[in-house]
């Protein structure tokens, strides 16, 4: 047994230390086949299984880890019924559908927020959907009833409109008729009904269904209310004779009822039970509605001849029933309808959603020919009639959507579409950026700029920036030792003893960083998790311990790709080259811009180093090249610090008391970490720590596992991927923030303390540096490729997203962020 097997056991069964013991390893390990990191271990496992000749890993496992078994990746989504809302998204944009339905990515926008407010309002309304007509569902009971109806009322054929003359009890019947003699229709509203159709494999929640009810007389032949009738007769009047044809023997379960309204209920209950759709909902209409027993239209045989006049008359009035004539789904939309050639039309996506509702209602036995969308913006009702053509289109789209959901690759973004501008997922999807990088990336990278690439770039329309250039939210740094953090409503309150240090609304926070001894209540952490505001923990000296966050995005497929790429040495090397290339280029730019007097040749050497890196043959070689270039950079770093010791004596600066002031200077000779031994190194260490935090957050936001990297190897407590992402941003953000803080005298020698060898920042020093760092993070930079302005924090996230695109093979190349 080798050590690697031992490690595997430890990784697979972290919660069962007994499994790590060597004796367990003589038996083939039972591998949990739902282990999230199987992809990572598959190679190792395979070699074990070969080594253990005869004892093999379950076949299912090997299948699961195989890249080719596409269908196995989305078994869950492929079989589930599709929500109608998702099909609506599919028609809007297949990529949006994939993000929401398969990847589980969803972002709130003002539109979705208002939309859900409307739906909430609609949901509050009461009213269940009455059951469809029994006759249409072809239940057995309806057949003899129809025959009976025809037999008893010879003048009234099913389907023919009843004439008043046919009706014996004209007074009673007239109540049901409008003036022109047509049946009186009454509209009731049913709200937020969820129905499904097995045929289509679709589930829909319908905002509102207008149900047209028609009142018809109860056909007596279908009654079996024996006990109740007897009871009713006994109570009401002993002289009344039974009006009914002799009914079958009373069912044992029919409860005795003693009032006439009770009779009614009993009747309804019995009949509606038979015809209730499968979805078992409390039926508020139960007292009023029973399905008509007769086939054909809803209003055949409105009444019977009256052989038993007095009682029949009484009962006739009691037993009129309302049945569903027709239903019309109505959907609310916030926007306006599309302007068509003749009048306003429905949008395609709305057509899909409403058409589906009609089909689903039909599949559930209702008569439904039309749906309506109510557009709030123009206060218009736009109708949609169901046609065969429309049905065919819908069914075709459902099949397409299923195929997309089962596919492993996401559909491409729309081409320069105005839909993207309104799409809430645009900042995640990055349609224009992805399209651009899809075509012209390879020549962008090598050091010798390829003219043809430039040309091709300029012929493409520049990407629209479909996101805010910077976040509205800000970071909250908690740095006052002993502070307590609590929650009041949606406001974070920071207290020291009894005095309030600050109050911060959740909506204004992007993340929270705690330094040292800060107490935070569980309620606060829970609320922060729910609001998707991560909490990062640091030591007082700035060591990044880790972070807490909510469940966040599902997006597991990005991780699967990440794990698989991390196993592939070629991909790792290619990516590592890109990261380091970017870093060296940015180091060079930094020196050229800020150095007071850059020695000859440094710029050229760095340029060469950046080029050489792309040809490195192994990670080891790359590491050597990176070290040499970094050494060259830090040799010249001091030339970018433009503040000398005597500057402190300049007038206008706050006098610093000599006694407090250890004679710190901002001389820099070489990079020293752990511990930093001079102020500049202390600042750099803190800056890198903050940047590692922000890279970790960016990696998590995109759906990566921050601990599995390509250049940096996983080691205890190191967010390797975040460190990879960080390389090109070190000069752009961290070092630049340090230089700005020093050169603008936001930080002065009084901001440091010495503890043994190490030099640390004071509380005030840290506070000043957080500001300097965040200032850099939120300052705008023109993106070299996309050519729009965005904050560094945005660009960081953008790069993380582009890395994900590269890993999922959507774009052919990862291009590091390099300022011009």
């Amino acid at each position, binding site marked *: 047994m080798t050590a690697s097997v031992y490690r595997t056991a430890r990784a697979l069964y972290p919660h069962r230390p007994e499994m790590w013991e060597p004796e367990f390893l003589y038996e083939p390990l039972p591998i949990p086949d739902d282990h999230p990191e199987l992809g990572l271990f598959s190679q190792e496992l395979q070699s074990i299984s070969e080594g253990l000749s005869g004892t093999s890993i379950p076949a299912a496992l090997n299948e699961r880890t195989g890249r080719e078994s596409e269908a196995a990746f989305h078994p869950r989504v492929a079989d589930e019924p599709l929500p109608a809302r998702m099909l609506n998204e599919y028609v809007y944009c297949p990529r949006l559908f994939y993000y929401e339905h398969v990847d589980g990515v969803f972002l709130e926008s*003002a539109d979705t927020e208002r939309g859900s407010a409307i739906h909430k309002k609609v949901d509050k309304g009461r009213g269940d959907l009455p059951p469809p007509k029994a006759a249409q569902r072809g239940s057995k009971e309806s057949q003899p009833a129809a025959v009976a109806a025809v037999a008893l009322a010879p003048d009234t054929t099913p389907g023919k409109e009843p004439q008043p003359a046919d009706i014996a009890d004209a007074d009673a019947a007239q109540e049901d008729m409008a003036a022109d003699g047509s049946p009186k229709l009454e509209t009731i509203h049913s709200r937020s009904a969820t129905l499904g159709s097995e045929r289509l494999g679709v589930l829909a929640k319908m905002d509102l269904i207008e149900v047209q009810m028609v009142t018809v007389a109860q056909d007596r032949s279908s009654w079996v209310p024996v006990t109740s009738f007897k009871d009713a007769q006994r109570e009401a009047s002993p002289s009344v004779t039974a009006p009914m044809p002799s009914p079958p023997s009373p069912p044992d379960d029919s409860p005795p009822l003693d009032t006439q309204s009770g009779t009614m209920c009993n009747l309804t209950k019995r009949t509606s039970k038979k015809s209730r759709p499968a979805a078992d909902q409390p039926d508020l209409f139960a007292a009023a509605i029973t399905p008509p027993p007769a086939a054909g239209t809803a209003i055949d045989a409105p009444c019977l001849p009256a052989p038993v006049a007095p009682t029949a008359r009484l009962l006739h009035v009691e037993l009129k029933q309302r049945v569903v004539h027709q239903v019309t789904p109505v959907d609310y939309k916030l926007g306006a309808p599309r302007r068509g050639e003749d009048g306003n039309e429905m949008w395609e996506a709305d057509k899909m959603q409403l058409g589906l509702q009609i089909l689903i209602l039909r599949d559930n036995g209702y008569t439904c020919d039309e749906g309506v969308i109510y557009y709030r913006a123009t206060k218009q009702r736009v109708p949609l009639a169901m046609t065969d053509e429309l049905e065919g289109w819908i069914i075709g789209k459902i099949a397409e959507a299923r195929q997309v959901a089962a596919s492993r690759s996401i559909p491409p973004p729309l081409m320069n579409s105005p839909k993207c501008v309104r799409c809430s997922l645009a900042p995640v999807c990055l349609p224009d950026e992805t399209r651009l990088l899809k075509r012209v990336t390879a020549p962008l990278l090598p050091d010798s700029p390829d003219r043809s690439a430039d040309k091709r770039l300029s012929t493409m329309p520049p990407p*629209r920036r479909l996101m805010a250039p910077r976040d*509205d939210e800000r970071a909250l740094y908690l740095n006052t030792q002993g502070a307590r953090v609590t929650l009041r409503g949606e406001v974070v309150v920071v207290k020291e003893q009894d005095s309030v240090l*600050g109050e911060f*609304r959740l*909506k*204004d926070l992007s993340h929270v960083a705690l330094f040292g001894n800060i107490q935070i209540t569980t309620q606060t952490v829970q609320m922060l998790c729910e609001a998707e505001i991560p909490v990062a923990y640091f030591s007082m000296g700035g060591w990044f311990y880790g972070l807490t966050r909510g469940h966040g995005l599902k997006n597991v497929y990005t991780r699967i790709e990440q794990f698989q790429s991390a196993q592939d040495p070629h991909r790792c090397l290619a990516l590592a080259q890109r990261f380091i290339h970017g870093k060296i280029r940015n180091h060079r730019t930094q020196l050229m811009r800020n150095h007071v007097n850059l020695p000859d040749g440094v710029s050229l050497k760095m340029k060469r180093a950046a080029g050489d890196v792309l040809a490195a043959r192994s990670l080891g070689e790359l590491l050597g090249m990176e070290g040499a270039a970094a050494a060259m950079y830090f040799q010249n770093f001091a030339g970018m610090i433009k503040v000398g010791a005597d500057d402190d004596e300049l007038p206008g600066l706050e006098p610093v008391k000599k006694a407090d002031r250890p004679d710190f200077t901002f001389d820099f000779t070489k990079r020293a970490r752990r511990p930093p031994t001079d102020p500049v190194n202390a600042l750099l260490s803190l800056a890198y720590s903050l940047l590692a935090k922000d890279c970790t957050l960016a990696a998590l936001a995109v759906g990566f596992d921050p601990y599995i990297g390509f250049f940096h190897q996983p080691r205890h407590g190191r967010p390797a991927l975040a460190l990879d992402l960080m390389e090109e941003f070190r000069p752009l953000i961290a070092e630049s923030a340090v230089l700005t803080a020093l050169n603008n005298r936001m930080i002065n020698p009084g901001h440091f303390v010495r503890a043994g060898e190490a030099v640390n920042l004071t509380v005030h020093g840290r506070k000043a540096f957080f500001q300097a760092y965040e200032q850099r993070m939120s300052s705008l930079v023109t993106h070299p490729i996309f050519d729009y302005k965005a904050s560094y924090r945005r660009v960081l996230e953008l790069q993380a997203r582009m890395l994900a695109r590269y890993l999922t093979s959507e774009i052919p190349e990862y291009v590091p962020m390099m300022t011009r």
Partner: protein
Amino acid sequence: MATPQPLLSTRTTFLVCYDIANDRRLRKVFKTCRNYGNHLQYSIFECELNPREKARLETELKDLIKHDEDQVLFVSLGPSEGRGDRVIAALGLPYTHFDAPCYVV
């Protein structure tokens, strides 16, 4: 394609002023507004809201107030960032506006 000059922030500053007839509802409205902005004066909050936050605040308030007795006004002061002249000027006690890139305590 001539795109309009993008704003630096998607947030707009609103003065949210309310007049609530009933004490219980008043307290609720106050508590809700506190989650969205600074309590500037009695019955006036200064809220920086992006469209999503505004929609949410509106929904919450709509659910709280009695529509035939109370009133809430949203007065827009324009985009929160990049506003040239300060729209709000104070006499007496100073009006302060938070403008740092992050919160530090």
